[in-house]
């Protein structure tokens, strides 16, 4: 993994129109972005489409990137996820049904990772998530990783949608309090 500082430098170079830096940035981030998108969109064609859009956006908006607000990878993943979720919401909730892999709740959460890969921010977030009860942890993580709406969470987990709604909001606000800002 490239050092964060190096990624920040690359985005800075991309902002100045450095195509070689752009290619390096792509090389350093593509697998992460593609993994995130594939998990949400299910279909490789769609994931590729959003990859193209996202990197185009990275190219045009690199000068707007502010390293004090987010790490480059967080910034890029946020853009990619946002677009992916727009797509899945707009094409309707039913299509999830044609994606058996997305229904596999067992494979919902990614493998744990070694502690050394964890940033301080992540550790803090995880310890706050850990304070939620397991079912609530699960809906927050499922929502993040799979890009599921409340309705989808409700269907998949067989929990009334109003309960999901309440849990999500409470959980998120608890995370906010726990993270201390």
């Amino acid at each position, binding site marked *: 993994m490239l050092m964060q500082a190096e990624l920040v430098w690359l985005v800075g170079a991309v902002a100045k129109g450095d195509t070689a830096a752009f290619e390096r940035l792509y090389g350093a981030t593509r*697998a992460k972005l593609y993994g995130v998108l594939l998990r949400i969109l299910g279909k490789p064609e769609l994931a590729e489409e959003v*990859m193209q859009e996202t990197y185009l956006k990275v190219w045009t*908006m690199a000068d707007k990137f502010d390293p004090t*607000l987010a790490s480059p990878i*967080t910034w890029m993943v946020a853009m990619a996820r946002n677009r992916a979720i*727009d797509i899945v*919401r707009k094409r309707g909730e039913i299509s999830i049904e044609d994606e058996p892999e997305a229904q596999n709740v067992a494979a919902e959460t990614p493998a744990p990772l070694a502690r050394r890969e964890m940033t301080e921010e992540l550790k803090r977030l995880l310890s706050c998530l*850990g304070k939620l*009860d397991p079912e609530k942890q699960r809906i927050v993580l499922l929502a993040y990783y799979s890009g599921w709406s409340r309705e989808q969470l409700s269907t998949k987990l067989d929990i009334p949608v109003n309960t999901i709604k309440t849990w999500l909001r409470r959980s998120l606000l608890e*995370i906010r309090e726990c993270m201390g800002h």
Partner: protein
Amino acid sequence: MYDDAQDALAAEYVLGTLSADEREHAEALLTLDPGFAASVRMWERRLGELNVMVEAVEPPPELWDKIVAEFGAVEPSSEAPPAAPVLATAEPPVETPPETPPAESPPLIMADEPGTDSIPIPPPPVGELPEAVSDSIAASLAKSLAEPAEERTERVTAPPVVPPDVESKFESKDEYKLERSANVVQLARGVSRWRRMTVVMGAIAALLALYIGLAQFAPGLVPLGPRTQVVAQAPGPAQLGARLVAVLQQEPTAPAFLLTVDPQSRTLVVRRVSATPEAGRSYELWLISSQFPAPKSLGVVGNDEFTQRPIPGNFDVATLRAASYAVSLEPSGGSPSGVPTGPVLFTGKIVESVPTAAPAPRT
């Protein structure tokens, strides 16, 4: 902290659990409400780190060529040469997919890292949730959902303002949409730029708290809370092809006026947000453009929540778009001389509002 219901909306927007309609609403707020935009940024920061735990998957090698191929259409940096197609991948994947399949029920925290773990405190079962809390959240959500119904319809039916040069730059509608959504993000970033320049994130919370505090103790001064009722009852921007928006403010946390310009119908709407009417004086709206030596008056802002009127003068769309807007405090009835005489209290630049989904002719 920013209002809880709004903050939860921001959180869910970032998490991705909102429906398409709610997302649209959130995106509109993102462009109009700096407080909401700050909330979204905070949540992106809070939750963004979760991506570390998503397993990386190598995309097909030809994807890079496709990305490179798109550069013909968008070339933002004039000094930059067009990206040359690169066939070979310059670098090995930095992040490789893990060899092991995801665990059946993977623990959130590594089992071998007790230090990271924390004692889970089971929250009360749902049935025991304080009624007031869940109810108030549900109520505010219902409110925030009910609010933009008209606006949403408007956005779908009104034609977007498409600068011809922008549209032709893109080969497909999708590319154009992409650029538009980029604009929205850009705008949201633009609105919050002051923060990055002047204060650290911690200070923002303090400012916002101050703002909320103000709203509580002097609701007349900062009537941001009743946003929902206001939009529902007033003949406001919902009736317009609200495409160009300016937030006129003096202090970043407190927009005083929201100006909406519809170039199609040549109508403007000023919404009073936190500016209080002063006895015996009038707020006057000005257009400031490099094309004119002096500000052009757009008329006096009425005392109601919304002031809606045809745009005076004969400004073209480009001028309206490029101009700055300001509000000065003038003698009752407006400046006697046609130029601002009182202090200029609020200023802002216009930005393009949320894009419409499908162009349709307006009548």
